[in-house]
């Protein structure tokens, strides 16, 4: 296992490359999910006027 992690002496380069790519992909997936959720929340607020209380508008940064 430690031999595998050592990558023949190139551990820093290999794992920085793979780790950086994995982190970037994880961030993109999370941000797309958050964006879809935000879009739905905004839609819900716009079609259900009964939910529109001043405090909620402020909290969600709605115009």
């Amino acid at each position: 296992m430690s031999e595998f992690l050592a990558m023949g002496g190139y551990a820093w380069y290999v794992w920085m490359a793979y780790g950086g790519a994995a982190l970037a992909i994880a961030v993109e997936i999370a941000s797309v999910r958050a964006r879809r959720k935000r879009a739905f929340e905004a839609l819900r607020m716009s079609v259900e006027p009964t939910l529109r209380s001043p405090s909620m508008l402020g909290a969600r940064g709605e115009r």
Partner: protein
Amino acid sequence: MLINWFRFSSPVSFYPVAGSWSYAFGATAALLAGAGLVVALYIAPTDATQGDAYRIIFIHVPAAWMAMLIYLVMAGWSAFALGFNTRLSAMMAQALAPTGALMAAIALWTGAFWGRPTWGTYWAWDARMTSTLILLFLYLGVVALRAAIEDPRRADRACAVLALVGAVNVPIIYFSVQWWNTLHQGSSISLTGAPKMAMTMLAGILIMTAAAWCYTIAVVLARVQAIIVERERGAGWLESLIDLRAAR
């Protein structure tokens, strides 16, 4: 089987299709990436000259290919949006830009960590590296331009023009290693000749490339769903989605 493709040209009918395809392609991408990583990090033999540093190729090459391909697809949707003034084409172009930027950034990042042990430097102003950096800036430029223009229809046209003008950079990246005597090596895989590498290495790259394709399709479809909801708000059909979501 005859598919009526025009049915998908409006956001109303495309929305649910995008959702189910996104999940299917996302699951496929995860399976392919899992298999590809086993080949890349474990099965593929250590390179005779580069040692294990070469294993970076399995993410570097697919990411670089995707970065170029996504740009061409984005420019294609942009041309379609300009020519036919279709909303969904512009939304597709809008959804592709961030993932294109991600792929260009991954290609540059992994390239730096490959260049250091093999060439002795993280970065050089080499023709291919510089043109790939310009590609990243073009993607970021499209995203920034979109954010700077309030009216989405005007933003569509401005971004489409920028995307089309920038497309000239893609052949420059692709042929840079032939046109200029440059630090970056030539291609090891081409459509016209036998690949200059072991079969398991080639298989690893192709599996990871397939994973990158599926990932891109999945994440772009998910993003286009968010864009549809953001931009079509006020259109009556979206209200039914809330009921659907609540029921699920």
